[in-house]
């Protein structure tokens, strides 16, 4: 599974896909076992952690908030934002919301696909059996390494309804 599909899978889980992209990922999930496993892991992370994607309440409207930022950029001498139609802009605009979170989660999730010993920054996790998934992450704020074990088969991972 390529990186683009991994990001789309995260967007699918967050209910941010529609139309063709959503159909593509739904089909992928019926055939690709790795995609099914990744979705299960992303679901697990989403359900176990809270506060990972805080929703910030703006004191003004979204448009006004962003227009202020744009004005500040222009005032800083960088000129108006280019209106050229770069190929990546629509893609970025679509996925910008979940991109940072998705990258973080994907880095974590990548670990779980390795069948052998999993090495990470400070340590190593080793185990037997494919039925048990493992996600390892480090909280620098709490100075704590978390090794989270979960049953890959526990969830109905093919269920295509995004949460």
């Amino acid at each position: 599974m390529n990186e683009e599909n991994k990001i789309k899978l995260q967007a699918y889980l967050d209910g941010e896909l529609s139309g063709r992209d959503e159909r593509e990922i739904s089909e992928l999930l019926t055939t690709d076992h790795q995609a099914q496993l990744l979705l299960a892991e992303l679901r697990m992370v989403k359900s176990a952690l809270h506060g990972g994607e805080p929703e910030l309440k703006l004191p003004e409207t979204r448009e006004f908030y962003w227009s202020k930022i744009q004005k500040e950029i222009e005032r800083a001498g960088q000129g108006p934002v280019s209106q050229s139609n770069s190929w990546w802009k629509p893609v970025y605009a679509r996925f910008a919301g979940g991109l940072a979170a998705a990258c973080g989660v994907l880095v974590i999730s990548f670990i779980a696909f390795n069948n052998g010993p999993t090495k990470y920054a400070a340590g190593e996790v080793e185990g037997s059996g494919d039925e048990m998934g493992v996600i390892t992450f480090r909280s620098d704020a709490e100075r704590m390494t978390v090794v989270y074990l979960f049953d890959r088969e526990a969830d109905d991972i093919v269920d295509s309804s995004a949460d």
Partner: protein
Amino acid sequence: MMKMFQNSASKAFTWLSCFVLMASAGATQVSAADSKLEVHLVWGTNDEGTSKHKSLEPLLAKKLGMFKWKKYYTVNRKEIALDQDPQKISLSKKCDIKVKQLDEHRYEINVYGEGKHVRKITEKITKEDSLVIAGDDKNDCAWFILIREF
């Protein structure tokens, strides 16, 4: 004369080497024997009801604040003093861990669920840097094994 000097220098060097080796072995043993770990088996739940278990101390509950569960209870707490042999400790009827010290702050932890080996984790653990091994439990609850030096 020169040969005598060489012989005694050689003997002195041999004795000195032995002394250094013995001293360093002793120091390693002292360091290993000094290592003490505190292990908590914690249960996380969103159930508002009361529990027979004691609430997890606030400092540790704060550490687990990143997770979704609202309440954390200490099911078991054990202190272990490690020597060079690995130690297996039982945290509950279903959960055991085997701890082995690899070097000063580096530990190998084997986790067993209902007697079956689940995972081997190698991690640095200090008084400040703790390791949490966690997993889902029934009824949307979770278990945590929190390990740190003390």
